[in-house]
């Protein structure tokens, strides 16, 4: 399949597909970060994670419309407001869901999967009733349009670079929060020994709720990023959920570096393959690869040997 291209063309293809893959990487990574925080820390699977992302996307869409109508002069900066709003909305819904649903199911991870799947169906229907079944898109502010001409044959879109930078910032923020802050210490204490953590005065319920809300909030930010690269519809979140799960599992659920590396591997191989075959076959090939590797190495690529 490489035969029809010159070496130089191939190089450009890889760079440009690689960059397209980086945007996918951003969405995967933000989705997976949220999932991994929730799964790794609490052993709970949130099947409605895609819908939390879409909530963030709709929030971004609403903000852009509001700015367009009331403050067109500030449109260039709407995205930052949108991001914060997306985070807050998804995190608030997350906290509510944790209180009403998840906290009652902590000892039953499989049932949690079913319940959150039900939640995802309900949210999809809510989105459809409120925003309509048709997909919506945001208008990018002018400074994000256009692309950077790196060489004759390599063009890199500016919004893509922006999303990338944003993702990196959030990832670093999460890492600091989890590994350096007092709160992160509490979370890890609860993971290692819930009873002991409770006994030394950590409010484990509050830690659980905040962790879940944080994971959902990050999904909301992923939704903001998502509006730059795809159009938002009621069921768009579902398309990403399986991939994001696999990113988490493939990376080894406990490891931040692992999650980053696996998001990178999966998005890059998919994006590169996409150029040579159809999009769906690229997805299939990537998923098959991941599933086969997970069958051989179920603990994921980056998990350390743990005592069973």
């Amino acid at each position, binding site marked *: 399949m490489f035969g029809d291209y010159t070496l130089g063309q191939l190089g450009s293809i890889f760079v440009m597909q690689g960059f397209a893959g980086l945007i996918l990487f951003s969405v995967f990574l933000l989705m997976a970060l949220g999932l991994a925080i929730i799964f790794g820390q609490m052993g709970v699977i949130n099947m409605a994670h895609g819908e939390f992302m879409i909530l963030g996307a709709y929030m971004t869409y609403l903000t852009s419309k509001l700015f367009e109508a009331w403050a067109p002069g500030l449109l260039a900066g709407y995205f930052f407001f949108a991001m914060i709003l997306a985070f807050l909305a998804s995190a608030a819904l997350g906290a509510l869901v944790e209180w009403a649903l998840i906290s009652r199911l902590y000892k039953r991870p499989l049932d949690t999967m079913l319940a959150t799947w039900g939640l995802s169906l309900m949210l999809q229907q809510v989105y459809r009733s409120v925003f309509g079944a048709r997909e919506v898109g945001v208008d990018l502010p002018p400074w994000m349009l256009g692309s950077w001409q790196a060489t004759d044959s390599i063009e890199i879109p500016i919004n893509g670079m922006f999303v990338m930078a944003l993702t990196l910032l959030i990832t670093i923020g999460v890492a600091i929060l989890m590994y350096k802050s007092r709160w992160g210490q509490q979370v890890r204490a609860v993971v290692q020994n819930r009873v002991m953590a409770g006994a030394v005065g950590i409010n484990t319920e509050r830690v659980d709720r905040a962790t879940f809300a944080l994971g959902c909030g990050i999904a909301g930010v992923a939704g903001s990023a998502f509006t730059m690269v795809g159009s938002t519809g009621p069921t768009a979140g579902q398309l990403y959920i399986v991939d994001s799960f696999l990113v988490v599992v493939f990376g080894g659920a406990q490891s931040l570096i692992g999650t980053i590396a696996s998001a990178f591997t999966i998005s890059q191989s998919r994006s590169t393959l996409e150029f040579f075959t159809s999009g769906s076959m690229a997805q299939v090939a990537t998923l098959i690869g991941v599933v086969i590797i997970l069958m051989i190495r179920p603990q994921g690529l980056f998990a*350390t*040997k*743990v*005592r*069973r």
Partner: protein
Amino acid sequence: MIVTDPAYKDPLLYVDNLSVSFDGFKAVDGVSFFVDPNEIRVIIGPNGAGKTTVLDLICGKTRATSGSIRFHDQDLTRMSENGIVKAGIGRKFQNPSIYDDLTVFENLEISFPRGRNVFGALTFKRDAEVRERIEDIAETIFLADRLDERAEYLSHGQKQWLEIGMLLIQDPELLMLDEPVAGMSVSERGKTAELLHKIIQGRSVLVIEHDMKFVEDIAHRVTVLHQGKVLSEGSMEHVKNDPKVIEVYLGH
């Protein structure tokens, strides 16, 4: 041990230079000991000495980093968990590990050593032999009148007995018990000692226990583990007077 001694018998279990490490931490470090047929061996030692890990290694729950475990002529480090059970080793866990959702009768039945593969389990018949054996064992473990109750309704002590019963029904040559009297009331403790005296006939037993009175009561020989190594070994009398042991237990 002098090999030319006419009284010498091959040991039943021979643990040789056994080590395992987790993430660089050596939980068991070059442990060697052997257990003779019909011997009751007690392993004692402070918390974190590696006692439970030694049992885990013998029954195959944890895989050794190096060293060997010989049982008769087989090397257990290369065998599957269910292969080790079939070879004649039974293991009781520290916390009572029974099936809450099944009746006491069904708990015991699952351990009956027949029909252990998929096809065998599908065609297993609850015949007179099975029933009699289960009723026999239930008598031994003081649960004859509770056979048809769900196991979750048993008291903590009764759950421990039930698990011991589940091992007895396998009739293992080597029985490994992890803290069999932990968490028991005084009267249950007495009954457990009585139970152990009854069931050790004709088999070797390897026990982890903290209760020194209980240990003195049952042990033929005692092995003291400390920080993953064998600190001392011999009769209870010998171990009690070993300065190294006194240092570990009373020192600091």
